[in-house]
């Protein structure tokens, strides 16, 4: 990688007004012993599964089924995704990266804030972990193997580093044998991990 998405004068972190309020409140409550941060994390994780990456799955299914939409997603993912009503509140730019037989895409970031919430909901805990980020960069094939994904040696793996300004959505490859499926049925094949790049879309037979 080695590229830097930031301007020189802006290479620091930023918290939105609402994030400042939440952090201020939580840190005081923790200090005074009113809440246990581990308990808060556990609760957040419980509800994480309730958010689900359904919005992103709808985007991917539409891209699979509708070539015009797919082209729009390639050229202006922010607008194409917003057209379905999924709009980020922080003005972040969305970029869709498409998996092909030649290239598999995987997304990382150390900060939980660098995650496409409007399409994927809350980030999984492993996504925020330091080992995931460092290993995804150094040994992407090893990380994928741990997720149960084994790609052909000829498939290149490209890592995309999220920033506060740019968030990536992986468009997984459409499984074979899905030509007759509706967009709703296709969306069921699209897992969260397949849109981060640590998984593949489900096979239709796995749904029966």
């Amino acid at each position, binding site marked *: 990688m080695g590229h830097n998405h930031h301007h020189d004068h802006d290479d620091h972190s930023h*918290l939105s007004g*609402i994030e400042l309020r*939440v952090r201020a409140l939580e840190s*005081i409550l923790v200090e*005074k012993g009113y*809440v246990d941060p581990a308990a808060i994390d556990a609760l957040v994780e419980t509800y994480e599964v309730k958010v689900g990456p359904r919005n992103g799955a709808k985007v991917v299914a539409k891209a699979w089924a509708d070539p015009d939409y797919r082209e729009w997603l390639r050229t202006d993912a922010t607008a194409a995704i917003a057209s379905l009503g999924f709009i980020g509140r922080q003005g972040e730019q969305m970029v869709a990266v498409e998996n092909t037989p030649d290239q598999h895409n995987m997304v990382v970031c150390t900060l939980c804030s660098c995650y496409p919430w409007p399409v994927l909901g809350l980030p999984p805990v492993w996504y925020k972990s330091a080992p995931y980020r460092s290993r995804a960069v150094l040994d992407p094939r090893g990380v994928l193997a741990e997720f149960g994904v084994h790609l052909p040696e000829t498939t290149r793996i490209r890592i995309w580093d999220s920033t506060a300004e740019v968030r990536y959505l992986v468009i997984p490859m459409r499984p074979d044998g899905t030509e007759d499926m509706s967009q709703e049925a296709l969306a069921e094949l699209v897992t969260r991990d397949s849109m981060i790049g640590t998984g593949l879309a489900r096979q239709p037979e796995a749904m029966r």
Partner: protein
Amino acid sequence: MSRYEDMARVAAEVAPIPRGDDGEPVFREPWEAQAFAMTLALYERGLFTWTEWAAALSGAIKQAQTAGDCDDGSTYYQHWLSAIEQLVSDKGIASEQALAARRDAWDRAAHATPHGQPILLDNDPLR
């Protein structure tokens, strides 16, 4: 989750929480789930009753509406957060001034943290 449904029921008397197509609760950003989880944790510690919570949430929503809130559901958890801040202040745990000072500290900490590293309160240069 029954604890969750208890809370949803109380909130529904004031304003129903946002839910997805399938009836499951929806949080659009991590902070919304954090605000929700803090309320649940404080309630379980006995810091306030459901009646007090309903009154605080109702007050926060009325205040926002008076101030011209768009009232389309997108600001729901902002009201939720205002309600907790109010209760925490009323109960003498953290005054409005203490919360404001801590927000400033987090803001300085964020600016002092290079992108890509965890933002810690200890990064605040004035701390």
